[in-house]
């Protein structure tokens, strides 16, 4: 089984790469960080002895993606699964953000994801193909102080649901993963700690999210919201008026943000 993973050198992408490696899948990993890719390639080869190919690439540049695709075509690879993990978030109020950083969130999380998905669907194994989109629990409600990110995620959720319908007849399954926070970096750990109780109950265990995402995608599921409490929040997001949800989230986030910014060394 050939699996392509984007954003494979960091947090969730890396954990999913390890999970797939442990299942004996062959991997094509891409990320913007060449050093990180080199490390994970070596680590997975050592632990599981599977084939790993890496290609560092900035997915927001169409020309860079074309070079990567040419590489893939030269090797004559066809894929059985695509896991779109690459994504970015810069937190803070819209006006405190750098303008281009805000735009970058959308160009990577949404535009680049479409680019790579289109390319990989054209290079899929015709028997059966699986696509995973990493959306977020943030796709369920507007999130002030994380506005661009939270707006980029429902795009993926809606797109995935529609794409699934389009490609059902072609044996393509599409799963959307909507996780809450995960302890992927020391910074993430700090932010989760700053949220106190709410941070603890919403945080998902990285290793089980990685495992269950692959499980569910292969079983043909549509949506995976990890954690009972998060499923409850997701349901609530559909019932509560959008402006009320935004007000509640704003209150909680501005407190937490103040706290974790104060603890920064």
């Amino acid at each position, binding site marked *: 089984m050939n699996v392509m993973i984007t954003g494979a*050198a960091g947090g969730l992408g*890396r*954990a999913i*790469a*390890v*999970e797939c*490696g*442990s299942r004996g899948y062959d991997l094509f990993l891409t990320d913007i960080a060449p*050093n*990180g890719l*080199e*490390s*994970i390639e*070596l*680590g*997975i080869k050592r*632990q599981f002895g599977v084939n790993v190919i890496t290609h560092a690439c900035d997915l927001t540049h169409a020309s860079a993606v074309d070079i990567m695709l040419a590489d893939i075509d030269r090797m004559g690879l066809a894929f059985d699964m695509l896991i779109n993990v690459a994504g970015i978030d810069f937190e803070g109020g819209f006006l405190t953000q750098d303008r281009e950083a805000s735009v970058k969130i959308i160009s990577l999380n949404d535009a680049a994801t479409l680019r790579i998905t289109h390319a990989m669907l054209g290079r899929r194994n015709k028997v059966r193909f699986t696509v995973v989109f990493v959306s977020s629990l943030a796709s369920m409600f507007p999130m002030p102080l994380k506005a661009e990110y939270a707006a980029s995620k429902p795009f993926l959720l809606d797109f995935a649901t529609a794409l699934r319908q389009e490609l059902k007849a072609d044996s393509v399954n599409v799963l959307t993963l909507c996780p809450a926070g995960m*302890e*992927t970096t*020391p910074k993430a*750990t*700090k932010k*989760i*700690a700053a949220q106190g109780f709410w941070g*603890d109950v919403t*945080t998902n*265990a*990285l*290793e089980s999210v*990685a*495992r269950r995402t692959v499980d569910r995608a292969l079983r043909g599921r549509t949506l995976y919201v990890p954690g009972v409490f998060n499923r409850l929040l997701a349901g609530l997001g559909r019932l509560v008026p959008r402006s009320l949800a935004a007000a509640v989230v704003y209150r909680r986030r501005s407190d937490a943000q103040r706290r974790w910014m104060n603890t920064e060394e």
Partner: protein
Amino acid sequence: MKTVVVTGATSGIGMEVLRLLSREGYRVAGVSRTAEGCERVDVPDVKWFVGDLMQQREVNRVADEINAWLGEVSAGKLYALINNAGCARNRYTTTEDGYEQQFALNYLAGFLLTHRLLPALLHGGRVLMTASRSHMGIKVHWNDVMLRRRYNPLTAYKQSKLCDILFAKGLNDRYSEEGLRAYAVDPGLVNTAIGDKSGGIVKFVWSFRKPHGTDASVPAETYSLLCNAKQPELLSLRRTGVQS
């Protein structure tokens, strides 16, 4: 002058060991994760190496730098390597290489660094591992060493410390005839910052345990003893089971 390298040397046990050995006349080098960390340490004449030992790429780089430095100052010989750097995590987190972080830092980093410095140590050198008595009652989970199936932070910690002890034994089995001796030290419960950054339940529990710990200068004596004593004395120490 005998040369000693201490990892995790900017706080807790590592810093006190560095301080004590420096006072006792060793040429000391410390490995720190960040450059800022080194500046906090008020021990004179320390040669610092900066690297995040959780990442194997960094371990290799630091090992190259140490080997080059040893070539300059001590004809390529290292008297003691103290693999002390360690961490505690509340949840499953991975390193750049995709290893679980506690396993990677507490065990694999020391393993790789020792492996890379082995030629410098095979002249009567010593390797000291910061282990822990918490390894008791734990086994190595061979089918899932990184504990991805069911992650329990304390199990991961204990297992990494058990591996440290097994590593010290393994080194003795293989290299004691070539003059290298390895020791695992149980520092006891020490008041250090190891659990402070982990967050969640681990941080919570550690906040209660920590005040009951001894000052880090107490276990530092054990490291000094293991560095100063002559080999035959150490053998008798081991038999009588002297502990710090």
